[in-house]
């Protein structure tokens, strides 16, 4: 056994990068699982191309997975990596600017011949031309070592080469003093049908681990990151899309309803459909529609039928759903519409993050069409906001848009699990016939919700539709006063929800010079930036909106306690527009980036400092 120096760190960031077929997401996932089980806090950022397999070794084909893990609470996947694992020259090229100066770069030396580095647009060999002078570089013949370790296993050479990811994972497990038992269990279950693959992957994992431990190359110190001091409780790893799916099933369970989920596959929302279609044991009815329009329409049909109804999509699909969404507005039916936002317009960058559907969610329909808009702020918050979306939609008989995004969808974090017995029931009722004729558009005086009459109920036969509705009867009406009255009812109904949502909380001083106001997935990075600046001795506050329509009741009171409101968004300033429109006296400033990637803590800090 070699005796390597040991060091203890509070946190570290690893970036795994390779071709999209190199299994970097899998390596990252496995590292994350083990890290969770070992009790660290963590945040991940899987970043991959839309192409399933772009041409081998090219820049567009690079897929990466970043994880920051820590012995304390953390809120981001880390601005810059301490360690970059680059399986090929393209992975190095794309990710070199994401490594801290002096950071460790682990390279697959076998992939750095002239053809390979030229294909990755390096002018000369980056291993020898001084490009990497500012870094610690560990050149490892990963391909050769993997082949050698697996030489006795009867697999095709292409299959053997595919085990490279487990080799580098093994190295990282050693470097960060992680136990690899968890990954071995996973391999054994996952590939149970093919024992030779199980053996190959385990052999590669162990070979990587042993190589890191015994190599005489300059291996840096083995790094220990202790268990995090987090809230006591039971935790699991969760991604936003999975949390959302589980949230919808939970909502159906808590309301004693069948969940009907209609969707058309679209990146980055499809995993919600995949996850839900796994869980027929919860009587989940998933329906893969012929298109986005049909998914929306089927969801409307199911809501009319009196069951819990949801659909999901991303920006381009949201455009197609808007006609149906308006029918749901007009017929006042409860439906949850999940928009996992991605970079647009049009097809845009399907796997990349943007928050640019907010104004579409608010206003992107013909006519006066108010809809409730909610947005989760972390992967695990997708669970809570799915419950909230369902609760509000059935209580107020209104469609609710839930704005997730590509970052929340795919990244993961530890989720402190709720006590499932204590989750509050979602109360809802369906009317039965009374003495008087049924009035489908009679309203609850408190919520303005109409009754949710289920077809099949005797005596409540009625007709609804997209034409303007007469108050109370719901009959077709062209009466001018009635038309305006109904528009105002629907708008007021959405605003009444503000009686039913939590007040906005401020982190930091209740008043002062600067409040950083965000919404959606930027929560973590804003939290981090505000914390660091507070630690540096400045007075600054943060508030984060889960509810965008209606706003929390105390929003105005909070805003007027601050001289300036900084609103960082991954769009040109959608929330900023809404705030200025609603509270014109508020002085706001935007910080807006649209690069398809999350904010970095340092850029936000720089912006905040300019304003202090």
């Amino acid at each position, binding site marked *: 056994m070699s005796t390597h120096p040991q060091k203890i760190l509070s946190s570290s960031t690893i970036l795994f990068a390779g071709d999209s077929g190199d299994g970097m997401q899998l390596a990252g996932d496995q590292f994350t699982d083990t890290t969770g089980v070992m009790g660290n806090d963590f945040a991940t950022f899987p970043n991959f191309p839309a192409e399933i397999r772009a041409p081998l070794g090219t820049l567009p084909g690079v897929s990466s997975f970043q994880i920051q893990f820590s012995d304390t609470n953390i809120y981001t996947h880390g601005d810059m990596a301490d360690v970059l694992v680059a399986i090929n020259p393209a992975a190095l090229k794309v990710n070199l600017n994401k490594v801290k100066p002096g950071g460790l770069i682990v390279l697959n030396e076998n992939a750095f011949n002239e053809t390979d580095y030229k294909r990755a647009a390096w002018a000369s060999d980056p291993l020898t031309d001084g490009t990497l002078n500012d870094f610690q570089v560990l050149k490892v013949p990963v391909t050769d070592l993997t082949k050698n370790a697996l030489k006795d296993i009867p697999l095709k050479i292409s299959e053997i080469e595919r085990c490279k990811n487990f080799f580098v994972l093994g190295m990282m497990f050693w470097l960060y003093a992680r136990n690899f038992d968890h990954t071995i269990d996973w391999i054994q279950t996952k590939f149970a049908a093919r024992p030779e693959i199980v053996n190959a992957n385990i052999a590669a994992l162990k070979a990587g681990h042993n190589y890191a431990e015994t190599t005489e190359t300059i291996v840096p110190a083995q790094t220990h990151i202790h268990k995090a001091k987090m809230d006591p409780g039971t935790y699991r790893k969760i991604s936003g899309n999975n949390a959302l799916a589980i949230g919808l099933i939970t909502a159906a369970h808590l309301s004693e309803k069948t969940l009907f989920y209609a969707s058309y596959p679209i990146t980055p929302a499809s995993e919600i459909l995949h996850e839900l279609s796994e869980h027929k044991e*919860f009587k989940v009815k998933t329906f893969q*529609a*012929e298109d986005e329009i049909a998914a929306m329409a089927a969801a*409307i049909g199911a809501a009319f*039928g009196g069951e819990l109804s949801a659909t999901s999509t991303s920006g381009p699909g949201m455009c197609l759903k808007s006609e149906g969404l308006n029918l749901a507005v007009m017929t006042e039916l409860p439906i949850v519409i999940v928009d996992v936002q991605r970079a647009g317009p049009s097809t845009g960058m399907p796997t990349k993050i943007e928050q640019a559907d907010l104004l579409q969610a608010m206003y992107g329909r013909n006519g006066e069409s108010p809809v409730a808009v909610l947005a989760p702020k972390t992967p695990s918050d997708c669970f809570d906001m799915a419950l909230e979306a369902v609760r509000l939609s059935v209580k107020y008989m209104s469609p609710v848009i839930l704005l997730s995004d590509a970052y929340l969808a795919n990244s993961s974090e530890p989720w402190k699990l709720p006590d499932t017995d204590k989750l509050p029931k979602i109360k809802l009722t369906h009317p039965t016939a009374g003495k008087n004729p049924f009035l489908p558009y009679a309203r609850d005086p408190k919520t303005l919700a109409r009754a949710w009459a289920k077809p*099949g109920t005797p005596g*409540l036969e009625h007709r609804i*539709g997209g034409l303007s509705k007469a108050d109370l009867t719901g009959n077709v009406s062209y009466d001018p006063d009635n038309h305006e009255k109904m528009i105002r009812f629907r708008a007021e109904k959405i605003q009444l929800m503000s009686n039913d949502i939590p007040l906005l909380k401020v982190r930091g001083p209740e008043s002062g010079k600067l409040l950083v106001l965000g919404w959606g997935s930027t929560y973590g990075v804003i939290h981090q930036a505000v914390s660091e600046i507070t630690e540096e001795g400045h007075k600054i506050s943060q508030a984060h909106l889960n509810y965008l329509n209606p706003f929390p009741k105390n929003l105005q009171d909070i805003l007027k306690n601050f001289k300036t409101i900084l609103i960082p968004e991954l769009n040109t300033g959608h929330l900023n527009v809404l705030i200025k429109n609603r509270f014109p006296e508020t002085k706001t400033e935007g910080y807006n980036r649209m690069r398809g990637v999350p904010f970095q803590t340092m850029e936000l800090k720089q912006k905040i400092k300019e304003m202090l």
Partner: protein
Amino acid sequence: MSSNEEKPIPPVPDAQPLYTRTDFVSGQEVRWCPGCGNYSILGAVQQTLAKFNTPKENYVFVSGIGCSSRFPYYMNTYGFHTIHGRAPAVATGLCCVNPHLSIWVITGDGDGLSIGSNHLVHAMRRNLDINILFINNQIYGLTKGQYSPTSLQGKITKSSPYGSLDHPINPLCIAIASEATFIARTLDSDPRHMSQILARAKEHKGTSFIEIFQNCIIFNDKTFAPVTSRETRDDRMIYLEHGKPLIFGAKKNKTIKVKNLHPEIVDYDPAADPAGYFIHDEKDVWPHHPYFLTQLTYPDFPMPFGVFRCVQTSTYDQLMDKQIADVKDKRGDGNLKDLIYGKETWKIE
């Protein structure tokens, strides 16, 4: 593949009807043009439903946009007047969550085969237990008289003053290509026939597609008259009967035989071996049988009316419920805590 011996079971209306036609009449004033064919279709539907003792609250009429799509407002049942072309998709969601309902989709040639053709095809190929009334008047009525996907080529309309260039779609061919399990054609001017077909559709488990020839008195008057008028119908209409030759003519003396896969009109001799004639078999699962019938069109041939196809396969809603039951059998009822906690958790003390 055929089974000529087996006769279809005619629908047996309930002996002591609970309802009369007026029970299905809603209070809303019917606002179709005087003389519109939709009146007789509405009447036939109300008349037909009154023959069954299906509880009134179990009927749902779902429509899209167009003249005929106002239909649900006039039925004293549950109804949903949706948006253009989407009625089959709305009905799909409804049928999935409550397959016990008797769901009727009302659509037209513009709604169903222009903007909504996609949904129509997919509803039929899934075989949901719904009834689709495809009311075909070969014109856009509500938008005031443009040519539709079923208008004849060369049709002079407001949007085609020099004649439309589009070749028309035959709706029944789309239904056959989508393998709808019940396919029929009827006409607004024959309420008795309509009612028989509607009753058959109601009894059928699976998607029923009924094309109804409807006269638009304002924008496309008498478009079907060359076939269906009192003067011409004996020679130009065939009422299909399962297991029988396609007999037509005022003297019932003409029929169709197949020669080199083409239809041929021949004299009908009741004493001759029927095997020499085309014998209708609505239970033939091969789609070429009904497809052959769709090709009998005016002016070369008489046009068939009646049930083109009636076959049984599992419905989508049945399969959906069965899949859930199968998974529950295997895994047991879902446990919420297991779902939320997942396969792997860890504790922080």
